[in-house]
């Protein structure tokens, strides 16, 4: 080993020069122009790209078509739907690539530019729409009559020219819309004398205390890692205390919107009182989503805050033993709100067969078999007109309860998008760390809202 320094000296003397040269070369290759696509490329300017509707009714035609799809893994509903579609339209073949949701989210812009899929599962679409990466689906909406559906179903997928959501052209379409609330274990509920869903928040608090007194963990809620699951109960409480439309304004990045309101503070304080009373399992800051599900299914927790996408799963895993209710209002008969969002799919601005992709999305919402798959496999309510076909469902199942709750939320106009979807990073950077800190007693309710609002402004301003 000792000879190495000696022989390496002469070479070593030249090494910095060589590195400098190489670096300079590398820099000169890239340095002249700023990175990013230039404005003269049509696919990524900031103006909307309208979908090329050919003829009166877009369809998949009669020639063989291969639809490229990029979807979330672990959700069988999409594959069930495509299989049925291929059966009904034999000229269409789906070439489906699956990835974890996080992977899709991270790669969305690049994938939409580099290998444009006809259909892609997308998170919130505002930035992608602003960058001109998605088709404006308004003409399809007109051609298929989506405009006549309840406007709240499509609202979350509309993005205006400023990148604000809620109005403007339609940039994505749902294959169903999901909704969240509280699931409970009926056997455990019976042990504390809870035979029906609580009608007021006070009554709910009473059940939480009763469960704790009985030695039952009231709530197991995932809140570990990068997933602040306490955002679920928090948003539900916000809907009980305040106006769901104000929360939507904030999520849609409306001018001057703030999350730091007196009503939201009361909601956050209420959540904090649950934390201080010990109603949550004491290890939720290290609990992930699957741990929460296994504990709930295993009867180790009375309540969980979750969405109807688990209805089918719970009906299979704990048949007859799972119940569901929406977060109760402050006073009986008061307003009800719920996080409710479509399972969004977009069409790349460079897609090869946008007509056929749109036709598929329309088929999912209108075909009877497709709607049945949506409910039985997906557990969630299909998109479409209010009077559309609904399959028969066992009234004792939790799926039936979540569907009924969905209808109630619709009637109350209480649907909100998820507060974690306000900006690309608000969940990982705003909500999650602050909710984890509040659980550990290192953040106050006031501080939490102020801090989240600060990162929100930082993101939409920067």
């Amino acid at each position: 080993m000792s000879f190495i320094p000696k022989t390496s000296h002469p070479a070593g003397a030249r090494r910095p020069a060589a590195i400098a040269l190489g670096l300079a070369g590398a820099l000169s290759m890239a340095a002249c122009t700023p990175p990013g696509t230039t404005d003269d490329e049509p696919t990524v300017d900031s103006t909307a790209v309208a979908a090329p509707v050919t003829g009166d009714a877009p369809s998949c035609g009669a020639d063989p078509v291969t639809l490229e799809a990029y979807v979330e893994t672990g959700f069988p509903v999409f594959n069930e739907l495509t299989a049925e579609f291929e059966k009904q339209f034999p000229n269409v073949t789906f070439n489906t690539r699956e990835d974890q949701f996080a992977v899709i989210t991270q790669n969305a812009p690049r994938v939409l530019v580099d290998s444009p899929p006809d259909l892609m599962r997308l998170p919130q679409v505002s930035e992608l729409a602003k960058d001109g990466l998605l088709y404006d689906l308004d003409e399809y909406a007109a051609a298929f009559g989506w405009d006549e559906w309840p406007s709240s179903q499509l609202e979350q997928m509309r993005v205006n020219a400023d990148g604000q959501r809620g109005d403007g052209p339609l940039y994505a379409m749902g294959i169903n819309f999901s909704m969240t609330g509280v699931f409970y274990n009926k056997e455990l509920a019976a042990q504390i004398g809870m035979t029906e869903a609580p009608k007021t928040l006070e009554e709910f608090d009473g059940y939480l205390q009763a469960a704790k007194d009985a030695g039952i963990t009231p709530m197991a809620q995932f809140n570990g890692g990068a997933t602040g699951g306490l955002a679920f109960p928090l948003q539900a409480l916000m809907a009980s205390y305040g106006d769901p439309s104000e929360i939507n304004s904030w999520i849609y990045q409306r001018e001057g919107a703030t999350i730091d309101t007196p009503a939201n503070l009361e909601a956050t304080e209420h959540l904090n009182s649950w934390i201080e009373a010990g109603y949550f399992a004491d290890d939720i800051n290290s609990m992930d989503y699957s741990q929460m599900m296994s504990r709930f299914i295993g009867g180790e927790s009375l309540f969980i805050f979750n969405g109807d996408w688990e209805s089918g799963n719970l009906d299979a895993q704990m048949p007859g033993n799972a119940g569901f209710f929406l977060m109760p209002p402050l006073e009986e008969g008061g307003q009800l709100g719920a996080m409710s969002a479509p399972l969004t799919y977009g069409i790349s601005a460079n897609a090869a067969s946008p007509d056929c992709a749109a036709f598929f999305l329309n088929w999912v919402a209108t075909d009877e078999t497709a709607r049945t798959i949506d409910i039985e496999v997906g557990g969630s309510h299909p998109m479409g007109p209010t009077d559309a076909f609904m399959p028969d469902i066992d009234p004792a199942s939790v799926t039936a309860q979540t569907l009924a709750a969905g209808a109630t939320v619709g009637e109350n106009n209480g649907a909100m998008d998820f507060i974690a979807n306000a900006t690309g990073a608000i969940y990982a950077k705003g909500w999650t760390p602050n909710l984890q800190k509040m659980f550990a007693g290192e953040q106050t309710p006031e501080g939490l809202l102020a801090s989240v609002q600060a990162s929100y402004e930082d993101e939409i301003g920067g």
Partner: protein
Amino acid sequence: MTASRRTGTSLNRRPSVSEPSLTPEARRRADRARRLRRGLPGLALVAPAAIVYAVFVLTPLGATIQYSFYEWDGITQATWIGFDNYARLFTDEELFGSILNAFQLILYFSLVPVTLGLIAAALIRKFGTSRLALVSRTVLFLPQVIPLVAAGIMWTWLMATDGAVNQFFRLIGLGDVTRAWLGDFDTALPAVGVIGAWVSLGLCMLLLLAGMTKIDPALYEAVRLDGAGPVREFMAVTFPAVRQELGVAITITVISALRSFDIIYISTQGGPGNSTLVPGLEIYYLAFLQREIGQASALAVALTVLVLAVVLPLHRLARGKEES
């Protein structure tokens, strides 16, 4: 290698003596041409590797440096903002905090495994070639073979509320200390550190053991004749002899602490509440979640500089000792 270089040097000198008629300028030129000719085959041999290196290492490095001066979402036109991204590294509590966390991790990823590795190696050396030494060596080295992701998953199970670690504490009557180790603000970073220490211990131990095996047994005999005990023996003979290996072990583990990503991504993802956020993870979040490619690049450049700033003096220290 040393011999051939020497021959080369003498050959180079010979013409300057045998051709006195040439002017100094011409002689220098001829020398340079000859050196170049002689170097050509070498250059040709190096070229493929050099090209690959330039394309896959230097170009991305250059691009990262370039991006760090822009505000860029990765898709649309970037805006030049000079050193703003670098300034934010010092003013943004979260970014700066991630760097502080990385330095704290050095304690667990480097100091602990190197110290334990030194003790383990010294003990194993004592056992010599016995079966016990072989078994302990294998057991201690095993973590090195396991992929980091698997190690991370395994430890999250072990450190869960009802995991083996807490079960052990309850068994020995320490039920009060049990907690969700990776979900507690006070213990999350040390808990992640334990995983890192566990992974690096094997490599440190093996490296130091290799250093110890080349020590002349006569040295031990000599100190023992001088009446030294095991501790004195270790301090006088073993420790100075493995300084080089120690330098290598410290360098490797310090680098792995500063650029740690996988273990933390798997076990805590930076939580709870950013208490285990490290630069590697933050770069990933900035680039892929927040789409702030410029800020991510600036942190990446800063991290590279930081690693060099910490490791180069260590390297020099180890080399200096070696030469003395």
